[in-house]
């Protein structure tokens, strides 16, 4: 039997399984591309406007750290796509992390891969199908993104170059995830490894773009800028993605040949023979299940905060252009600019941390579907406690992570500029103040779960919509009634803006109402 036998039907099955999820994600990305393209064309009609805006971006290390630099300040396309070339490429990478893992390690962990492997399916077919499926999705995303750019009013060649950089990043993400999924028997650990890999590549680019430029050449995210899609494209850069992606996929295949189905390259360590006396109720169990995720997220957001905080003090030194000085003045001085960076990071952190909160709820839903919750509820543990344990880890964990982000930013700033405890309190407070928006989305996830464990995944669509509203709302000049649907738009951008009690109270009240309704509903419904 051919090792690739069955690849084609598996690929089709995978595409069919992903049709809703992929369509939503791809469309969101394409809409943001179109919105950015068309908005930039109308906001900056003349070359002078564009140069001014581009120089302002380049002179702010904070923005460069998040979005990457603009190499050709006269280019309309590069200005329009600056955010999308780098930061959004990370969301593109995330899509392929989810896709590849879903069709490789998750299938193995659930035992479905074994079921398939026993049929007329070759041993390389499942990995090949995952790569082929996500590769086709990447191609489709690239075509649509290029079309969206052109329709938005940008030059054709540049649009193709930009879209090709997304496809390139997709390729690397596919290869990276394929390798990560060979390493551990746990789908969760594999996702963490692949996520860490993407984060490291993004981090290298941050370092390179704000420091020694050669470091950016180590990261596919750095290549995306240096492809110079919008002026004299260096097409050979596309080869870098292709070689790295292909190399990773080949490595994944080799690693797979060296291991048994269902096991990982890294052997699982045996666990304790006895349970800890504290592992005796729903809270302890939920904590035990999530503690690794909480720690790795804590490390991740702490690093994010530290890096951003450490970059912030450089703001003043680099602003030697007229445009830069104008930006500073309009924002209220160098100190205010540092705060603006922290505020920007915190608003992104709020959305990122919501992913954690939803993942915790989704895990609770998975426990119910698989029958683990049933075993717990057949003991002296009440439904209330099971539910509250999930809610506390989800909502409380999200606030904790925000706090860590803020504290990390203050520490990073302190290490560079010698700031005092004042920054720590200010930034930590500003971070915590984002909590109510996160709680609203997390509480909505709890409510969905309380109406049926199968509904919990809808929360991801909810988060994606809120995020999309925040991103394109301003560009497309959507009415307040629409942008107001996203809880994130209601909170002030602390520490730049001052604390606002009204939205905080309202959002907290809404989150509380959703959570209590969810709690009540969960106690009344059938389990399983």
């Amino acid at each position, binding site marked *: 039997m051919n090792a690739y036998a069955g690849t084609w039907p598996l690929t089709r099955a995978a595409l069919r399984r992903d049709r809703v999820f992929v369509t939503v994600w791809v469309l969101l990305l394409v809409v943001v591309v179109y919105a950015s393209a068309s908005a930039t064309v109308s906001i900056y009609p003349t070359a002078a406007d564009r140069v001014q805006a581009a120089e302002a971006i380049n002179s702010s290390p904070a923005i460069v750290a998040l979005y990457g630099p603009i190499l050709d300040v006269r280019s309309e396309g590069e200005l329009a796509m600056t955010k999308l070339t780098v930061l959004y490429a990370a969301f593109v990478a995330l899509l392929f992390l989810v896709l590849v893992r879903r069709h490789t390690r998750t299938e193995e*962990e659930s035992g479905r891969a074994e079921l398939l492997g026993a049929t007329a399916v070759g041993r390389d077919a499942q990995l090949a199908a995952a790569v082929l499926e996500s590769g086709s999705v990447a191609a489709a995303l690239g075509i649509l993104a290029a079309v969206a750019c052109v329709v938005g009013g940008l030059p054709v060649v540049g649009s193709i170059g930009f879209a090709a950089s997304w496809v390139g990043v997709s390729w690397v993400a596919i290869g990276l995830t394929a390798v990560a999924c060979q390493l551990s*028997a*746990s789908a*969760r650990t594999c996702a963490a490894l692949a996520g860490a890999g993407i984060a490291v590549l993004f981090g290298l680019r941050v370092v390179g773009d704000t420091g020694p430029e050669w470091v950016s050449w180590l990261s596919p995210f750095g290549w995306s800028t240096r492809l110079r899609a919008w002026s004299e494209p260096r097409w050979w850069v596309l080869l870098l993605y292709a070689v790295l992606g292909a190399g990773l996929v080949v490595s994944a295949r080799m690693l797979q040949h060296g291991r048994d189905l269902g096991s990982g390259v890294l052997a*699982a360590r*045996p*666990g*304790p*023979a*006895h*349970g*800890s*006396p504290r*592992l*005796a*109720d729903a809270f*302890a*169990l939920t904590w*035990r*299940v999530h503690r*690794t995720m909480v720690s790795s997220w804590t490390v991740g957001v702490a690093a994010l905060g530290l890096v951003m905080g450490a970059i912030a003090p450089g703001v003043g030194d680099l602003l030697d252009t007229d445009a830069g000085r104008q930006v500073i003045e309009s924002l209220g001085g160098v100190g205010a600019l540092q705060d603006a960076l922290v505020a920007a990071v915190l608003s992104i952190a709020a959305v990122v941390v919501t992913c954690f909160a939803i993942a915790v709820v989704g895990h609770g839903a998975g426990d119910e579907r*698989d*029958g*683990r919750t*049933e*075993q*717990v*509820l*057949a*003991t*002296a*543990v*009440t*439904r209330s406690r099971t539910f509250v344990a999930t809610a506390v880890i989800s909502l409380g964990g999200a606030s904790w992570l925000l706090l860590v982000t803020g504290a990390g930013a203050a520490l990073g700033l302190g290490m560079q500029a010698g700031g005092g405890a004042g920054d720590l309190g200010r930034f930590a407070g500003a971070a915590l103040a984002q909590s109510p928006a996160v709680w609203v989305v997390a509480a909505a996830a709890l409510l969905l779960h309380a109406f049926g464990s199968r509904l919990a995944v809808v929360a991801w669509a909810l988060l994606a919509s809120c995020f999309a509203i925040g991103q394109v709302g301003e560009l497309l000049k959507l009415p307040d009634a629409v942008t107001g649907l996203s809880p994130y738009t209601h909170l002030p951008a602390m520490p730049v803006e001052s604390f606002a009690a009204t939205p905080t109270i309202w959002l907290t009240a809404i989150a509380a109402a959703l959570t209590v309704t969810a709690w009540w509903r969960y106690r*009344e*419904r*059938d*389990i*399983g």
Partner: protein
Amino acid sequence: MTEPVIAVHGLVKDFGGTRALDSLDLSVARGQVHGFLGPNGAGKSTTIRALLGLLRVDAGTATVFGLDPWADGVAIHRRLAYVPGDVALWPNLSGGETIDMLLRMRGVEPASTARGALLERFDLDPTKRGRAYSKGNRQKVALVAALAAEVDLLVLDEPTSGLDPLMEQVFADCLAERVEAGTTVLLSSHILSEVERLADRVTIIRSGRAVESGTLAELRHLRRSRVVAEVAGTPPDLSLLAGVTDVRVEGQTLTCSVAPEAMSDVLAALTAAGVRSLTSAPPTLEELFLEAYRPEATVTR
């Protein structure tokens, strides 16, 4: 007479448009091992889940220890242990951690239980992670957690699925010890020999309805016997008698199926014809269950 440990009357549960339980009755007395038999999808697990308070029923009543599982679940759960039909473990928790956690959640301190002995008898390695266990070993984890401590009631949903015959025997021994100590058992299964070996009473359920209930002897009694007789004279025409079916005559030998109430008439007729040899075999359990399992339309009464 003491109140039954489990009392179910006219239980109805609908899932969307399908009726999973259709006026189900079930009664399990204290100290009894009650076999709960039925084909796949008959409603065994749904009944158990209703008894655990995991499902809200649409009509009828169910009590465990005289309490309502929906309202007083925790009070009931303190006195029982449950083994689900398809055991899912926490992927990152070791078997030992899972067992201890489930025991502690029931308010039992693992050190005071037969946990260690059971691990040895079931030949289970408690240091493996949940995801690394095979199906049979996952089942063992749940069985050890359920059998380690004394409880008033064991609710076992197809407890031996995935166990090898050796382990089935270990399970049977452990269960017998628990029963000796006074534990009541609800044993759901579709494996006939298992129930025959372990259970005192049996309820057979089909399409959410109890179709038979009683001791195995009683159930047998309800069923037709296979009679083979050799007569000296002309074989009598037994097909005219009520309760007699499948009559076949070959020379002097006559075979037929006889309902219990028709047996004396058949014997009289055979005696009159000068019976030389006679065998009457009760239905095998296999036949009994196959008939009970058969879908409604094809059941001949």
